[in-house]
């Protein structure tokens, strides 16, 4: 009788602890992962109809994102899954002040143990599967623990999907909630160095300009796109790349067409229509840019400008 009572108490304790583990896991995840501003890496095992079974007993990385904490510091978030093998699987959530995608052991760890039949989803459009509706832009951790199904739904508020603009489209970001970004309240004391580029008076002619995207003649990207860091906007101009659509981009106020400033881009389709050979885009007199009346396009070795 006593043994039965002790066993009963132990089982009850065990199930309470399990439930507690799930609550704590959810709390940790809900407290920070939804505020991710960028999805850095994503496993190819995402969005599969069947559970993740291979390789057994192995930690696999699912996703890495980045966000800011209340102090304005970068925080990396990672989700790992130890695939069921000899033991049941484990979902691990990590936050760290550096990239965690290759390392499942460092940082602040929170585990959800005894997971089986695990599936990991981030649907790009609403999908009915596994007996539930999975909403676009949300991250889902789906599986079973002790025979009971669970589904943890985590909104990824700030991770936008690729926009497909057409006539009458506006430019609200295509996040889960269009046009809405969600973050934690920043502590008033947290100050970050201004990481934006450019000043209001910057201009090409005075050689005070920030380039924010650039390609070489052979079409290799010599500077990756960073125009989202421009303090006062950005604009496109004709660079030296020989590939269509590869503009050079500058931070700041667009003064295209003026003397000494970049020429205004005409567009490759229009140049073709004018029956111009587009093999070399940046050369003196190139029609790929247009200027103020009386000025001509000149290639200064980096940009097509107006002189």
């Amino acid at each position: 009788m006593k043994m039965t009572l002790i066993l009963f108490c132990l089982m009850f304790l065990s199930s309470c602890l399990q439930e507690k583990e799930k609550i704590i896991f959810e709390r940790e995840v809900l407290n920070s992962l939804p505020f991710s501003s960028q999805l850095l890496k994503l496993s190819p095992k995402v969005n599969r109809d069947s559970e993740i079974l291979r390789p057994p007993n192995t930690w696999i990385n699912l996703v890495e994102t980045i966000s800011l904490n209340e102090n304005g510091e970068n925080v990396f978030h990672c989700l790992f899954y130890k695939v069921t093998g000899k033991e049941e699987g484990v979902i691990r959530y990590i936050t760290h002040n550096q990239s965690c995608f290759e390392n499942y052991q460092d940082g602040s760890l929170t585990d959800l143990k005894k997971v089986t039949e695990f599936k990991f989803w981030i649907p790009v459009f609403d999908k009915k599967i596994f007996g539930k509706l999975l909403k676009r832009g949300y991250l889902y951790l789906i599986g079973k623990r002790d025979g009971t199904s669970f589904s943890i739904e985590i909104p990824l508020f700030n991770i936008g999907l690729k926009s497909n603009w057409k006539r009458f489209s506006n430019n609200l970001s295509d996040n889960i909630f269009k046009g809405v970004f969600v973050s934690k309240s920043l502590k008033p004391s947290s100050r970050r160095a201004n990481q934006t580029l450019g000043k209001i008076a910057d201009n090409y002619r005075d050689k005070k300009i920030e380039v924010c995207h650039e390609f070489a003649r052979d079409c290799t990207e010599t500077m990756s796109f960073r125009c989202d860091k421009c303090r006062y906007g950005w604009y496109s101009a004709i660079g030296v790349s020989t590939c269509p659509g590869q503009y050079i981009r500058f931070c700041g106020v667009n003064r295209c067409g003026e003397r000494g400033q970049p020429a205004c881009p005409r567009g490759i389709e229009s140049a073709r229509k004018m029956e111009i050979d587009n093999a070399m885009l940046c050369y003196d007199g190139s029609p790929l840019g247009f200027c103020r009346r009386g000025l001509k396009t000149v290639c200064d070795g980096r940009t097509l400008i107006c002189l």
Partner: protein
Amino acid sequence: MMNKRIIFTILFAILLSGVGGYFLYGKAKLDQDVRINAEYRKLYSAIEVFQKIWTEGELSGLESHLKDCPSSLKLSREKKKCSREILHCLSKNQEFKRKYINLEIKRPLVSKANSQSPINFSSALELELSYGGTSLVLHLEYGCHKAFLPHRIYTLEDSNSRKYSWWDNIGRNLFIDKTLVKNGDILDWLKADSDLKGGDEIFKLIVNSDESLPAVGLSQKEMVRYCAFRGEQLMDTVLFDAASMHPGDLNSNQMRFPLRSMWPWDYKKKIGTIYNYRNKKIKEVTLKECNQVFSRECLEIEKAKDREGTHTWTGIRSVLGGSLEYFRNPVYPKKNLKASSHLYNLDSPWHELGKRAWWDGTGFHIQNFNFRFADPPESVKKFDVAFRCYKEERS
């Protein structure tokens, strides 16, 4: 035997109290975790409500919470979108806050020029939501009133090569303000742009004006700065013509021959309100004509309140009639002003797309303008010049 029983009982009691104590402590912590989870879930579900209010102008079921701002409810659906006034009104309504969530507008304008942390948007309104002990910050983008310029070939007024030439935006994503910058937008900017010199003068100019009217009285430099503060560019004539002149075949992105339509409603010349009025097919300017082009006659028509006129094929407005509007003209800098406005009667030659006057950008008296072939009435001593912005987005 008795001793063994006593020892076992004592050990069991110690174990039980240890477990009990752990449980009680753990339960309190767990209760807190459960509460926090619930607070987050509540906040997350409120976000959807705000998103619908902001981006869709969806106010059904909220009318009673806007009773202190009756003008908000009279706005068109389009104008209810991205409306700071509506959010401001809700943030003052205690009933709304009790029913949904506590909210406070922290900053009406946040952009890369004044944000203290990296942001992924160009400009937004900053709102704080709180429930229980948990709070979140929402940034609601100012993007509702921008129109995408479709990828296609357009005609460029460019006499460097021929009378007209071509340009295209294929591979570039350009978004144009559908309407003019408003006084309310300028007030938000003045609060946000702490480095601006001369902001006080602008503030005095517009502080008592209707926030929903086009902002006038700014110099060219100030207009450029306003757009730049929001991460945008001052409108130019090339884009304005592309977005307002009818391109002919809307199903194609090509143009077989250079087309610079006179009117926004059609590429044909002998069609529409102005042509009909000039050719006496319309005898009188009424509200119907004013809804297309707000000309001088419309100032006398009481019901003609909306000065923005017809929509073009891309959805922008205020392309004929209404306010004078300044643009940057990269090809012809001396043709930088849309003169088609309420200064001129409907039969004026100014009421055509592509016809532009000149403004020197600094003053607002007749000597600062050149209206070329048709001067405004002599009774007009001071001129109000409005403007708008555009933005390029990455794919």
